């Protein structure tokens, strides 16, 4: 899957579930620090993305992520090509 396609899904689901504007979902931003998303909403959102992509993201992997760009990278490494 193209990176831009992954980013598109990440952005669409964020708008749908996290009440953020599509333009605010930028690769250098953090969901928690910049978009003010609480941890519980973020966990539900990542579960929704796991379902959407048919992948699993471990809590350890997610704990290290700083930016939305890094999140997209992680998903892309898991999605079957």
């Amino acid at each position, binding site marked *: 899957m193209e990176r831009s396609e992954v980013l598109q899904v990440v952005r669409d689901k964020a708008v749908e579930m996290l009440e953020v504007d599509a333009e605010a979902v930028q690769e250098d931003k953090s969901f928690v620090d910049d978009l*003010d998303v609480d941890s519980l909403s973020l966990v*539900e959102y990542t579960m929704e993305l796991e379902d959407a992509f048919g992948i699993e993201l471990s809590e350890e992997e997610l704990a290290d992520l700083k930016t939305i760009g890094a999140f997209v990278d992680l998903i892309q490494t898991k999605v079957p090509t």
Partner: protein
Amino acid sequence: MSLALVFPGQGSQRPGLGAPWRADPGWSLVERASDLLHRDFEQLLLDADAEQLRSTSPAQLSTFLTSLLVWQAFMVLPSQEVAVLAGHSLGELTALVAGGILSCDDGLALVSARGDAMQTAAELAPGAMAAVLGLDDDAVERICAGLEDAWPASYNAPAHVVVSGTVAGLAAAGSALRAAGARRVLSLPVGGAFHTPLMAPARDGLEIALREVSYAPPAVPVLSGVDVRLHAADVPGVLSRQLTAPVRWRQVVEALPAYGVDTVVEFGPGGVLAGLVRRTLPNMRVVSLATPQDVARFGG
């Protein structure tokens, strides 16, 4: 549109949560509350940091006041058809004020007494809470029933139950729940084992305050998260039971269509309830109001 107005509980507060309302005429509510309780609520709503807002009493009072600021502004809009009110845990007291059962001053007195009583009970029996995602209610109940000190504390949405208990009980529950297939077990930043038998010591303190306030007939029906019925004669009894009973929020949400509700409006910061409603009723229209701009836009 036929509306359900819903009010969040503790956990939605964040630093500066009152800032959007500083210049609103309704801000006098905050000044009045400060006078009544001899506490600086302007500081709490404008300048308190995350650490201060995590403590039980400040968390609850700041959430209550902010929800009421939004609700007051909403009530100035041309009249809306409101079918029913409800609130999550603490938010049930906010709903009782919005429904006319409690005066604003009495609501504030109860929230203050309730927060203090819960904080004291939590100091007697330290506890913790965690959100369990990806397991059915039945599975969570079964696992908690087999453990000493862990209980289901809030049915939030399908496959989303909060468990509450002693620190050891919750650690055991976490392992058992993961083994049973929970996709995530997420610690919640709260100061005690709320909505469990460990909160029983809080009843005395709350009941004193419950006896000192008046209860009016509802102007708008208020649905309780304790028994998923409309508040009627025994408001204090229900509020006392609420301390040790699980919050049946998901069941409250599932009951809304039967009251003719087609739109759910959340009052306060965070939008947590809006998310839970969407997860429970995907076809329900859901709006989250937190700022004067949100309210003006809703009034359209």
